[in-house]
């Protein structure tokens, strides 16, 4: 399955691994921040509705 990368196997795979992990890290960070804000907002809204009756 793995293509034969010849003598540049290290360079090519390092480039792919690095780039994909940067992208993955970025996406995970965006998702985590979004989830946290969504949760905090739900809490804040709930506090407000409880207080306002």
């Amino acid at each position, binding site marked *: 399955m793995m293509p034969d990368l010849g003598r540049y196997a290290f360079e090519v795979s390092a480039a792919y691994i690095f780039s994909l992990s940067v992208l993955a890290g970025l996406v995970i960070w965006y998702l985590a921040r*979004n989830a946290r*804000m969504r949760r905090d907002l739900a809490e804040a809204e709930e506090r407000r509705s409880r207080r306002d009756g």
Partner: protein
Amino acid sequence: MVSSYWEYANPTRFMQTSGWLLPVVAVLAVVTTAVGLIWGFFFTSDDFRQGSTVKILFLHVPSALMAINAWLMMLVVSLIWLIRRHHVSALAAKAAAPVGLAMTVIALFTGAIWGQPMWGTWWVWDPRLTSFLVLFLFYLGYLALWQAIEDPDTAADLTAVLCLVGSVFALLSRYAVFFWSQGLHQGPSLSLQAGERMDMAYKLPLYVAMTGFGLIFVALVLLGTRTEIRARRIKALVARERMG
């Protein structure tokens, strides 16, 4: 029926629309990028001179493209914010910057690792490489300014001004570095008049990967803008709680 573009500048409208748009773009982005990169990695033959390092192209060119386009997008939405005061546009600029920074890092890294076997060095002070390093610094400064300022409207205003001024100076720097050194880097990979034309076998997966990276950018900006809209709403609610 949407009467004008500007309706999306309303945060509520934006949340509604992006709510169903985001999953669609996200799925498209993942599929397109996966197709482009898998095609590029597994199903292209080695170049007769570059060997298998030609496969790095499918990461390098799309990320470099998006690194510049992200800044352009930030410039446009900064202008929109300064002129029309739509909060969504300021938050979109904030959401785009980390993606641009990551794309710049990917472009620099893949370039360095390709340069090592091809040019015999990780880094040369070539105009294009230098321009990207300068772009990287601009992204850092822009993000640092966002982080440093408490008040969201002040932060949005000042970063927008920085983005405008920075764009002018980024352009100047680009001309300056071309003046300062003639480089090793080949001309634009896809330009029509370039001496070496790229083979269709490489071009097609490259186009797919470029579309994929573009879609990733759009999806992350949508997601990030939604996050920032929520963050602002939380701030407003907390402020109101404190008041009484």
